[in-house]
């Protein structure tokens, strides 16, 4: 770490970022605005998408679940990379805050992946006549859920917080290297076995009237994700830093400097 601290001004932000207290206070200021933005975007997107967007020619109203399904799938995958990057930063710079972010990203990502799978199954019933098909995207999503569950299970298997953090960071990184390989293999496997009857509507061919609310929903999900990540990380910070004076002051309601 010596070379880092000698580096002076340009690295200062990085060090401050590593301070849980700074993170707690800054995100405390951002949270109300972010939550408001997330609510507004999600509300607009939902009303627009569910109420006003035109019906799909073939699928009728059932296609509208896309407004939950696609954003959830986006964030599920992006969340894995956020988790892995946070883990890598923790391993390289031994930054505690980064581990806390990683630890918080895991359950959020797992829930989003599950949501993507669930909405996919609900969508599949009217569209394909069955809740589950071994489609390439669904299968990849399922494997992603397994990867998340592995990271979560490993995190809590260790008695020591630190060992759990390091272990799950390594696993998340190994998973990151593997995700493209897994996705490509599953794609290839699917084209090899593809039954001709199933076809998905793909996003670019969507009518703009359908696509715009989707875009709003995706943005809303991103904001929601950040809010959730902040909340989880703040809770983790309070738990881990409970012995420090600033947390004691905060909890006891004494004035902070």
């Amino acid at each position: 770490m010596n070379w880092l601290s000698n580096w002076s001004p340009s690295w200062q932000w990085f060090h401050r970022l590593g301070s849980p207290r700074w993170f707690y206070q800054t995100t405390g200021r951002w949270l109300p605005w972010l939550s408001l933005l997330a609510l507004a975007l999600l509300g607009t997107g939902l009303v627009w998408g569910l109420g006003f967007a035109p019906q799909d020619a073939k699928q009728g109203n059932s296609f509208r679940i896309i407004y939950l399904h696609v954003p959830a799938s986006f964030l599920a995958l992006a969340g894995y990379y956020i988790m892995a990057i946070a883990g890598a930063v923790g391993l390289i710079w031994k930054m505690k805050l980064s581990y806390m972010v990683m630890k918080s990203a895991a359950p959020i990502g797992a829930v989003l992946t599950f949501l993507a799978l669930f909405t996919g199954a609900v969508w599949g019933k009217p569209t394909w006549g069955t809740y589950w098909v071994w489609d390439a995207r669904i299968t990849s999503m399922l494997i992603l859920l397994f990867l998340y569950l592995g990271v979560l299970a490993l995190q809590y298997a260790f008695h020591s917080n630190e060992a759990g953090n390091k272990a799950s960071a390594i696993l998340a990184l190994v998973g990151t290297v593997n995700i493209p390989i897994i996705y490509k293999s599953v794609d290839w496997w699917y084209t090899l076995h593809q039954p001709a009857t199933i076809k998905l509507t793909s996003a670019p061919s969507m009518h703009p009237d359908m696509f715009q609310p989707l875009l709003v929903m995706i943005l809303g999900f991103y904001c929601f994700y950040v809010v959730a990540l902040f909340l989880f990380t703040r809770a983790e910070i309070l738990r881990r830093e409970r012995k420090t004076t600033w947390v004691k002051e905060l909890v006891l309601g004494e004035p902070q400097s």
Partner: protein
Amino acid sequence: MPNTPLLSVERLQFERDDCNVFEQIDLTVGRGEIVQIEGPNGAGKTTLMRLLTTALQPTSGNISYAGQSIDLCRYEYLSDILYLGHQPGVKMTLTAEENLRWMAADSIGSIQDALAAVGLAGYGDVPCYNLSAGQHRRVALARLLMTDARLWYLDEPFTAIDKQGVSFLENCMSDHVKAGGAILLSTHQDLAIDGVRKYGISPHADQRGQ
């Protein structure tokens, strides 16, 4: 540089889950010295050994070997130390001789002599699962006769060995320091060797708070 201590430890601290394990450690070990680490159970003696042998990374502080930080001379340092831990590192399915040949790969001296010296003459071909716990430790102790490492780390070396074993080990240790080596050991037992320096460590306040 005759005045540089072989090992010097400055402001060493180690946190486990945000709690310091022991009070800050400052320690030097010179050539020809035996330092006995003392402290109650849970004071972090084994943790200190693991930090010094680089099995664990310290949270802060410096460890220098012959005046150079061990991060900069890792290979030289690790080639120059010998560590005996709680577990003897003996493979049950191998014979005593095979174990020793494996553990002391770049060794000096003969395996037969070393086994005889620790009282295991004739046991060379017996698989270790037929030996007792004390005999396993003796197999590990035989490494001391076959090493040219200058700095020895012995963590509770007297566990499970009998009187003869103890006096063998003490002889071994005094021979080593006479030859200019240095020893850091943790034990609750008083040694029958002169000039042993004691260094007490105590658990950090964080530990008692829990």
